């Protein structure tokens, strides 16, 4: 079975992703690969991943997201996660996952503002 592809949009120097599906492991890994390739090709300096529609993040998805942030950072792109649902935030705490070094914002718009502030100073 082949993985679904999550669309990655480019807006100036930023990449925008809105995850709209229940992520299975293969799709999550494919997304990780696609995003890193896209950062490489486009030279993007910032990435916003919007999780508004995601109603579950288990330890595997959390690991993939955390790795995406670290790897993007290595490649010179800052990542902001946006729209994390309250229920998802609470289950992450129960799992003992703190995503400490990860930037977050309320929604896509706030995420873009955060990136702009970070990258301009």
């Amino acid at each position: 079975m082949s993985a679904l592809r999550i669309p990655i949009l480019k807006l100036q120097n930023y990449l925008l992703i809105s995850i709209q599906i229940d992520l299975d492991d293969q799709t999550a890994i494919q997304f990780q690969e696609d995003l890193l390739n896209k950062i490489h090709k486009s030279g993007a300096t910032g990435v916003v991943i919007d999780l508004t529609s995601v109603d579950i993040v288990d330890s595997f998805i959390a690991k993939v997201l955390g790795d995406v942030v670290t790897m993007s950072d290595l490649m010179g792109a800052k990542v902001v996660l946006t729209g994390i649902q309250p229920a998802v935030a609470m289950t992450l705490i129960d799992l003992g996952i703190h995503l400490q070094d990860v930037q977050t914002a309320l929604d896509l718009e706030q995420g873009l503002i955060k990136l702009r502030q970070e990258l301009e100073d």
Partner: protein
Amino acid sequence: MDFKPCVNIRKEWDIVGARQLGREKAKEIGFGTVDQARIATAISELARNIYLYAGTGKICFEIVDDFEHKGLQIIAVDEGPGIRDISQVMEDGYTTSGGLGAGLPGVKRLMDHFDIISEVGEGTEIRASKWVR
């Protein structure tokens, strides 16, 4: 206590199928959004462990409704390699697969009751329940 459907875990996608069915059951029983997410997450962790460490197995659901409790019990069963040291796998961060090692201790915190029986060479059975408040 009679209704007891099971989801076979054979391929990776069954992890998603199991947690979606579990969430539906949780919603029907009357759990709120946060507990639905807790239950779905716990199922996802148990189903992935079956897939990764035992290859195949099943996740069954049992609705509990007696004098004391109303809720949902998840039963994860496999005939995989079993677990030698249960207290070790219940430690945060312990993993044999390069994961986060957050699954089993996480399930215990996500749910209200957690029980694990395992025999090396025989398999593993985990029961985890959540009560409606």
